[in-house]
């Protein structure tokens, strides 16, 4: 059975959206027979994340939260995985939905350690949302295209695609949604378009593009 570790922080608007929009990924992973360990909310702290990843040694790691070039942040914006802990990605394909982590943390996980591949964002991750939908992110039609484009990466990997194919799936979802946004009469679509284009440009990876988890 393939092992998946998922981290979902939930303490501000963007992590709240990521938290809820990870649910379709968990559902698909479980249907595909993955053993999913989810480290959520208040439990998403350095000690718990590191010890569980070292113990489980997941085939697939999916992190949701804030980040910078050198760290992934857990609950309450506290550093959870920094350069000194890059070994936790050993043997794993990782998708890190957080700002900038790809730049140095991702590079180190692959080049200095044994991560098979580290997929993430080179720049800020943008989300756009309707203020009145904050309590129900899965019903937010404005954020949906942005989160679905991002979700295409883990969903592709779980369904057996390699890294390159999964990233291309995300580019395809983005392209389709960008086209819809261009021709949409909804004034909100101009904001969606911006986030889609920016995130799509920032999505990249270090490591083996032919790596698979399933």
């Amino acid at each position, binding site marked *: 059975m393939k092992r998946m570790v998922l981290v979902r922080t939930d303490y*501000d*608007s*963007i992590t709240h*959206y990521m938290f809820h929009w990870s649910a379709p990924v968990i559902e698909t992973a479980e249907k595909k027979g993955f053993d999913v360990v989810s480290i959520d909310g208040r439990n998403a702290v350095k000690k718990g994340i590191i010890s569980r990843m070292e113990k489980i040694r997941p085939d697939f790691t999916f992190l949701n939260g*804030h*980040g*910078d070039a050198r760290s992934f*942040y857990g609950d309450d*914006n506290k550093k959870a995985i920094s350069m000194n802990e890059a070994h936790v990605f050993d043997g794993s394909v990782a998708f890190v939905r*957080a*700002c*900038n982590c790809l730049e140095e943390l991702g590079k180190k996980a692959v080049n200095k350690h044994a991560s098979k591949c580290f997929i993430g964002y080179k*720049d*800020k*991750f*943008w*989300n*756009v*949302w*309707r*203020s*009145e939908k904050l309590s129900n992110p899965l019903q937010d039609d*404005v954020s949906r295209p942005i989160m679905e484009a991002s979700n295409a990466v883990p969903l592709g990997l779980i369904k057996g695609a390699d890294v390159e194919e999964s990233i291309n799936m995300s580019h395809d979802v983005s*392209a389709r949604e*960008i*086209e819809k946004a261009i021709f949409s009469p909804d*004034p*909100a679509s*101009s*904001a969606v*378009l*911006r*986030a889609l*284009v*920016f995130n799509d*440009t920032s999505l990249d990876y270090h490591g083996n593009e032919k790596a698979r988890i399933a």
Partner: protein
Amino acid sequence: MKYDETTKELVILRLKTVPSNISFSIGDLGNFTRDELIREVKEETSVGEAAVKMELTVIQKMPLLAKKIAKRDETE
């Protein structure tokens, strides 16, 4: 990153087209309404810089995306 007045004006004009009930989350920089984002651009803060970078990226990428869409439509 510093940007000139023309760029600033262009970004502000483009942001004004976004409805007021839409919020932007920019990673760890926080959440901003359209008007808050416009103010950040005017004041040239780090958030304003992120907004300018985003707008300029979109402007640069759009012609390439349009070409891609046109090419795909031709082959279909």
